[in-house]
């Protein structure tokens, strides 16, 4: 009897702490697994930093002997397990090593490219939600109605428009023909100061954000729509209407809440995506972000940078999943016991 009451008392906070610890303990081997796989993928892929020198167009040929010398300089002639342990040892001291390409610390290169990608992806996510949610709620409010069908056609057309094509099209139209928006880059050169500088940066963001946004509208809008459509027929919505709430209020306050749960879970998984830039959009708009850094590093076999960025992505994903789990556990105690 006594034992039982203690257990009941303990549950609350301690259960949560235990759950958290268990989750973190599970995250560590997962992260390790990710790191091992990425390390192997990167190092076992054909080619090496030495063979990536030059390109098909600038065919400066480097002899295999000179390449071997480079491999030695980069320490790539050491056995793979040794390289892995060395790298892991450095990572444990929060040192991601130095880029093979320009010999700068990997962390510095990532820090440099991070703000541009965060700004771009953050705004794109914001606009995606700001546009997709109202469309989804409106469409779900009257399933198979004219707005639902019309928006579906438009959204799927956007969804299936290739981004490189759309980007070049808007560039030609808005930048070259009309001259309304800057063509590429993050700011004008020289950049104006103060408020004009901010406006200049926003103008540079407009097109890349648009290009990142339009394609993902369909996904979110349809997700919200199906949640709202499902909830709309249920008793609690009918009850709300009976209490005298307007249709709009009933949809937003009650039906939409129902659709919010899967959306929030999904967001948890999408947040790490803020860090992984979009290669195509960043290349077309000459955007100095992480996507280009990742892409170029893979092409040049800049192993330390590729590993650093993969690690960053892995940690962000795990952290976001963990946060989502914790949030869910806080809301729903049943999850703590099973999780």
């Amino acid at each position: 009897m006594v034992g039982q009451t203690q257990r009941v008392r303990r549950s609350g906070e301690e259960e949560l702490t235990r759950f958290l610890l268990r989750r973190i303990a599970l995250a560590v081997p997962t992260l390790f697994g990710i790191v091992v796989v990425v390390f192997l993928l990167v190092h076992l892929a054909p080619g090496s930093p030495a063979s990536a020198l030059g390109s098909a167009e600038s065919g400066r040929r480097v002899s295999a002997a000179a390449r071997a010398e480079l491999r030695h300089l980069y320490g790539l002639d050491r056995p793979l397990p040794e390289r892995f342990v060395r790298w892991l040892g450095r990572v444990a001291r929060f040192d991601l090593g130095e880029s093979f390409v320009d010999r700068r610390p990997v962390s510095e290169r990532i820090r440099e490219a991070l703000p541009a990608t965060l700004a771009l992806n953050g705004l794109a996510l914001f606009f995606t939600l700001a546009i997709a949610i109202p469309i989804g709620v409106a469409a779900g409010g009257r399933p198979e109605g004219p707005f639902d069908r019309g928006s579906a056609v438009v959204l799927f057309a956007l969804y299936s428009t290739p981004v490189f094509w759309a980007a070049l099209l808007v560039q030609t139209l808005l930048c070259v023909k009309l001259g309304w928006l800057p063509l590429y880059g993050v700011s004008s050169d020289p950049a104006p100061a103060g408020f004009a500088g901010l406006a200049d940066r926003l103008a540079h963001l407009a097109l890349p954000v648009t290009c990142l946004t339009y394609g993902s509208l369909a996904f979110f809008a349809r997700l919200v729509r199906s949640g709202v459509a499902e909830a709309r027929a249920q008793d609690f919505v009918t009850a709300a209407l009976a209490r005298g709430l307007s249709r709009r209020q009933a949809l937003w306050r009650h039906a939409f809440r129902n659709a919010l749960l899967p959306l929030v879970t999904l967001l948890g998984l999408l947040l790490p995506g803020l860090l992984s830039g979009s290669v195509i959009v960043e290349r077309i708009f000459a955007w100095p972000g992480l996507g280009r850094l990742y892409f170029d590093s893979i092409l040049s076999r800049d192993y330390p940078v590729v590993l650093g960025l993969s690690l960053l992505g892995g940690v962000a994903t795990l952290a976001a999943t963990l946060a989502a789990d914790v949030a869910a556990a806080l809301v729903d105690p049943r999850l703590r016991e099973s999780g």
Partner: protein
Amino acid sequence: MKRLPLTILLLALAACRAREEAARAGSGLAPSPTEAPAPALGFLDESRDGTPVEGGVLRRRLVGEPTTLNAVLQTGVPEQQVLQYVSRQLLDFDARLALAPGLAQKWEVSEDGREYRFFLQPDATWEDGNAVTSGDAVFTIRRILDPKVPSPVFKPLFADVEVVEAIDAKSFRVRFRARDSLHAYAFALPLLPEKRYAGHRFLRVRENRAPLSNGPYRFVGWKTQESIELERNPRWSGTRGHFDRILFRIVPENSVAYRALLEGSLDETSIDQSLKDRSAADRRFQACCRVVEFYNLDYNYIALNNRSPLFADVSVRRAMTMLLDRPAIVRSLYRGSARIISGPWAPDSPAYDPAVTPLPFDPRAAAELLDRAGWRDSNGDGTRDRDGKELEFDLLASAGSTAGRQLDEIFAAELARTGIRARVRPIEWAAFVERIDAGDYEAASLAWAASDGNPDPFPYWHSSQFPPTGVNIAFYANPAADTLMEEARRELDSEKRLEIYHRLHRIFRDDAPVVFVVNASQKYAFRRRVGGLVTSPLGLYGFWPGPLSWWGRPNESVDPEKRN
């Protein structure tokens, strides 16, 4: 004592001959009525046209970000494009491929051809006011020789150095172990300021990203993945550039660079065939921009692995060349702006002998060669075979290049008609290189980019240079050719050396170690405001003074169509 200026004169003469060649090739282009007239090919020299405007900003395009601005560590074109304004070289290539004095006002070669003495310009100074000294030169060369320094461009050129030392503050000597008439080409070498590196780690010092100038412009700033800015160097006393500032913007995509040109945020960009075709019909482009097209020393070829049982036989290799319809490729793929080549140089290289005509496109003769070599379709499966082995192979291609892919597909189709099965296999660049290097291929589509005017075939075709030692990636071996290549290296008289190259050229044509394809034109688009362009077989900026002769009228920030 043998002096080099004679070489310069002879190379210049050879280049003049090359220039006539280019003009002839250009005049053969008859534009069809439906297309805009093709721009005249050949050398462009506007350095005396119009009155240069002083001042303003030149906005140039970089395809990728330079990996460093340390001249010794450079590996690619973007580095070279920026450094050309900032770091002067000991010797330069001029527009006609000859070596000319740069930071070195003169140089002497010892009787035995092994020792070079350089005398630096007395007034050469760094941007901080210090003199450029022989100490800087010795430091630079020693860093190249340092096994801890990755310098893939310069290491092979200085691999044979025995001694490098200063004689006095303004002169130094470099002694090589073997006599080689081509050692001089190594000294197209930018110098590093020794003082800036003292006490710092060579690979990591800040200087590598903010170089001290000894040239016409100095470094101002570098925004990662965005731009690099230069301005006039007030301490510079040599040939002045016309612009006050040079702004390089990093624009990875060709089609975006084209739009940037129309918009006015770039003044120049390289373009490809499809953008050139598009520009001809684009009124907006014609109003503000122009195409500049010329031949340089680059060419493309299809490497055949001479060690493979398929291509060890010279008659099979010759048949391969004769099965590639190069005239049709010039017409269709390159719209006439490419020249068929018969050996491992472009027609504008003095080493190229125009008398050595290419093997013809002749599928019937090729089939006979294959028949006689024993490759017949004995089992009736449509593919030739010999001793139970089918005549089939993978044709490796670098995944990046579209023009190359089209060529490979055309070639494979032609081969199929003659009973040879070639499968085109596009591979990502780094993986591609690794397979070529290891000799793990049968045939591969490659481009040759000449980074300087050195025509020495030795590293690429001598049988001692098989990978991993060298870059004779075709594993070509012919004792007669080997002897001639060795002779050419020993021959200090440049006219005699050219004769040897011409003899070699004939052997290369007849041995067909690889399928030599074409020397295609280089295409650039410029805003019309930029004048004073000079092209050379080394491109628009592979020579001195290169882009320094360019000038620009004030930038119409909005293009004329937009204004009204």
